[in-house]
């Protein structure tokens, strides 16, 4: 496949503006030669040809797929994305300048069947390993497998970094859904970007007779009646690669078959109560969104199938004609693009802390309604039903209907306007505009915190982030918004449940609109949504108990007096390395 990414001047590495590929191998303690994409010999061929044996191809691959993923998100969100530029915890080392602009990629960081985003190293570490000799799956026994050569793994890990840049408190597992959400969202992004490549889809469509969602492909050759089984490889039916993420990776670590197969089991509403492992739990969310995706795909292609049948076609024993496959692939990839955008945009409508699947459902629905009030194919309904079937319910929603699941809109004039906020233009804010906005938001929180639902007595309210967004509506109108996060951190004691204190975070996400000028005057920016996770004794208790139950409450450093009551916050951070490890 070919990945096309925006042109930028790159130095050998490749080292560009947003990504620096640095090929240091921690297991062999060496750097590998960087690829020079400006080399005329590479330019003329459109980059290095695929090769497992040349680390420079790996570097090129990592750079291209990560850039492609980032651009997809920037397109969907209508703004530039920053990497995490804030410290993980009070006791952590300061983040160096420029970190929010550029992320490091380490294509061969370790000899381990693992690849993960590491906020500490401000980058993504990809491992390589020898495939199992006894159970290698579709790899050769003992073959070296590179995680940095999997499109899905690169997209998945890049998404973790992107989410961490947008919602930096989602790495604090304050409830059982938080780690699962990080996983599920990264899977969704990887899967939808996979699905939006038509060339991946065509082959699968032909082998499933257009039924993209079948978990098994028809073998290339039918097995004749009376024979005992497949005689040649073309007769072996395979698992559908589109519903299995990163199969090469999964098989090589001995997992047999699909690593995170999202579909293939009938939905039930009990899994949500019993699945606690982050990937398992995340797969519920992935399955829900994919259920909706396939439903919409079926709706949108029903006419094509009918036309085909009207012409005498029967897909049960005929091959899918190439033009029909082409049209189906176009529809599937278009729908995948749309779902990717819906999911990505939902990030801006999530509360800043303590996310649950129910919050995500509300964010998805609200974000989509906000931009596309018309929903002719019933995308929102499909999503809602898919979540309902899997028992995902939203806290505080009185019924499972659109009205009660959307985040409530702030009535006009119910909150004071945010005077002085500057929206800049679609290409970003200047330093002075940023400084101004920070001041405006802090002052607003200070003055009107109570109206937003904060208890100001509990502590200072921080303006964590603010990003202007520019979206074109269906009618061509330009919407100018700002998404801002206000967060209050309260050090709360564990009492006898653990050591020292934990940071209890209360926060709101604000969506602030700049309306078009009226009567020759630009109206002051008004708040349209307040998406809140505020303090309550019940929530405090829930977070405390969850930390205790997940073994994060006890710190030997604090117990031994090595550090103070608030000195060991690293324990409240997700370790992506262990989440992804075969461990």
């Amino acid at each position, binding site marked *: 496949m070919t990945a096309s990414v925006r042109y930028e001047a790159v130095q*050998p590495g490749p080292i560009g503006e947003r990504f*620096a590929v640095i090929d240091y191998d921690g*297991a062999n303690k060496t750097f590998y*030669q960087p690829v020079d994409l400006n080399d005329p010999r590479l330019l003329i061929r459109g980059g290095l040809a695929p090769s497992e044996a040349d680390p420079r191809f790996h570097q090129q691959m990592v750079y291209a797929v990560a850039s492609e993923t980032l651009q997809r998100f920037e397109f969907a969100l209508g703004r530039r994305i920053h990497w995490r530029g804030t410290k993980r915890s009070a006791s952590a080392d300061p983040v160096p300048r*420029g970190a929010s602009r550029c992320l490091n990629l380490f294509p061969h960081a370790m000899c381990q069947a693992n690849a993960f985003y590491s906020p500490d190293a401000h980058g993504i570490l990809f491992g390589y390993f020898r495939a199992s000799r006894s159970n290698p799956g579709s790899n050769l026994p003992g073959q070296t497998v590179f995680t940095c050569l999997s499109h899905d793994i690169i997209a998945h890990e890049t998404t973790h970094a992107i989410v961490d840049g947008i919602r930096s408190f989602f790495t604090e597992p304050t409830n059982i859904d938080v780690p699962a959400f990080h996983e599920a969202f990264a899977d969704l992004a990887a899967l939808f970007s996979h699905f939006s490549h038509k060339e991946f889809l065509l082959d699968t469509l032909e082998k499933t007779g257009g039924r993209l969602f079948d978990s098994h492909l028809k073998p290339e050759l039918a097995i004749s009646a009376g024979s005992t089984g497949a005689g040649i490889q073309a007769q072996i039916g395979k698992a559908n690669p589109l519903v299995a993420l990163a199969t090469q990776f999964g098989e090589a670590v*001995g997992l047999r078959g699909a690593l995170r197969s999202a579909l293939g089991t009938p939905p039930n509403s009990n899994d949500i109560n019993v*699945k606690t492992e982050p990937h398992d739990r995340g797969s519920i969310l992935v399955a829900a969104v994919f259920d909706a995706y396939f439903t919409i795909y079926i709706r949108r292609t029903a006419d094509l199938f009918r036309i085909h049948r009207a012409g005498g076609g029967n897909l049960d024993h005929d091959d899918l004609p190439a033009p029909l496959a082409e049209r189906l692939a176009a529809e599937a990839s278009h729908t995948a693009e749309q779902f990717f955008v819906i999911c990505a945009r939902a990030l801006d409508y999530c509360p800043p802390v303590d996310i649950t699947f129910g919050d995500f459902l509300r964010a998805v629905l609200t974000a989509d309604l906000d931009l596309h009030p018309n929903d002719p194919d019933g995308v929102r309904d499909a999503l809602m039903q898919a979540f309902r079937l899997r028992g995902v319910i939203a806290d505080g929603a009185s019924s499972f209907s659109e009205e009660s699941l959307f985040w409530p809109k702030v009535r006009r004039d119910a909150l004071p306007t945010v005077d002085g906020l500057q929206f800049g233009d679609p290409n970003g804010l200047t330093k002075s505009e940023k400084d101004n906005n920070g001041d405006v938001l802090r002052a607003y929180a200070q003055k009107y915190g109570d109206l937003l639902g904060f208890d100001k007595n509990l502590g200072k309210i921080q303006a964590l982030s603010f990003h202007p967004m520019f979206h074109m509506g269906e009618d061509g109108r330009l919407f100018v918004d700002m998404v801002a996060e206000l967060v209050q951190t309260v050090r709360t004691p*564990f009492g006898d449940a653990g050591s020292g204190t934990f940071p209890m975070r209360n926060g709101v996400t604000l969506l602030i609109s700049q309306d078009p000028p009226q009567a020759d005057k630009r109206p002051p920016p008004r708040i349209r949504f307040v998406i809140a996770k505020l303090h309550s004794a019940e929530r405090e208790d829930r977070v405390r108990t969850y930390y*205790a139950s997940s073994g994060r409450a006890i710190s030997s450093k604090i117990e031994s007096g090595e550090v103070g009551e608030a000195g060991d916050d690293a324990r409240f951070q997700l370790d992506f390395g262990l989440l992804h490890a075969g461990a």
Partner: protein
Amino acid sequence: MAPKKKSTPKVRNKTAKAPARKAGKAAKMPPRGTDTSSPSTDPSSNESARGLRVRMFRVGFGDFFLLTVPMAGGASEHVLIDCGVHAQDLGSIRDAVQQMANDCGSKLALVIMTHRHADHISGFASCSDIFSGFTVERVWMPWFEDPKNDKAMAFQASLTAIADNLSAKFAARGGSDSSMLKDMVDNITGGMAAAGGGSKNQKALDVLHRGFKNEADYDYYKAGDQPILPKSLTDAGLSAQILGPPIDPKLISQMTKVNQQYLSDEIETDDEVVRPFPKAFCTDKNGYPSDAFRIYDDQTIIHLIDGAQPDVLAARAKAADNTLNNQSLVVLFSFRGRHLLFAGDAQWGNWENFLYGGAYGTPGHTELTKNAQSILGKIDFYKVGHHGSANATPKDAVAAMRLGCVGMCSTQIHAYNQVPREPLLDALRGRMEGQLARSDQVATQGTKAEKTAGELPDQFKVPATGELFIDYEFN
């Protein structure tokens, strides 16, 4: 660390709004003394339970409990719950088993093995000669031990294989952290037997399965099963409920999948260093433009990459340990209105199901279930789970226990970090009005009582010799 949180009343905002969840109201932590589920709610509790006794032997870091049930006519029957020691072995287990054999005439009505960790079963192996003289009527084990269940057996076999593999790796790695982790995984297998092959735990399991004088009846239980008690015990008035482990047989295939994911046995792939590329591709920092190091310089990058490699082995060891602890058989005994809860080493995952009816924190599962409240609200005796470690007795469980129940905790300091967990024991003492005994509060031949453990509370007794075990007698 003062337990001042205790007095903070829990405010459950939601219960006020949602009338459908009235059950939640009762979950409010009741103010002390006004516990709604006090023992007086059980009509039979006025009857005397004289003769009912729990004996805790001191063997080191391990469980060894004997429950004695009085029979009509002055005789009594005995139930053995675990017999093992792993870390901090005090060398007293042989004396203890001999003592038990003498006291009960080598006759046990029931043997319960809560789970197959060495610190709960090693005694069956090291004292197999004494046990071979025992008559045992029934044996209860967790569902995972059923030899006729292929899936359960495959699961245990893979867990054992993983533990062996990890143990070898930790041994090779050296260092004090590694040796603690090695201890942890060796607890799964018991370590290798000195001679004859097989692990020590396998030997103990063999004794449990066919090493008694007679052929016992075997039961394999999971949460919700209706257990079968020997007739003598039923006649005496004992009944039992199984509260854990929480396994739905339909989920076993799913569980083994989790097992594969989290306890992948393909460790061979991980640690062996592979040279992925020929030397010709190697370079040093000078092969890169200076902009590569604009965020972090080369030394920092080397340091960060070297430091960011997750300790996968340690995570595996902990996951394996948890998996096994959560297999623990949790048994609630009732006798003339007295209720005794033996929790094995059940950790959060096992409790969760019982306490909240599902994964904690998911909608509808943030408060204790009615059933859990009513059980915890009536208990008279609690065998503290997992030697007093923090994640083995959830805070909500402590808060729901009946005020004035008593507890026993078998433990030994310096075996693992933060076990026993003092704040947890303090919270339990608060609930038990001080009546919580620790096994290290009694001496053994050769080991003194642990000074830091404090005095033995007054409702417990030690034998005239002042050594080996602690008794709690009901009245």
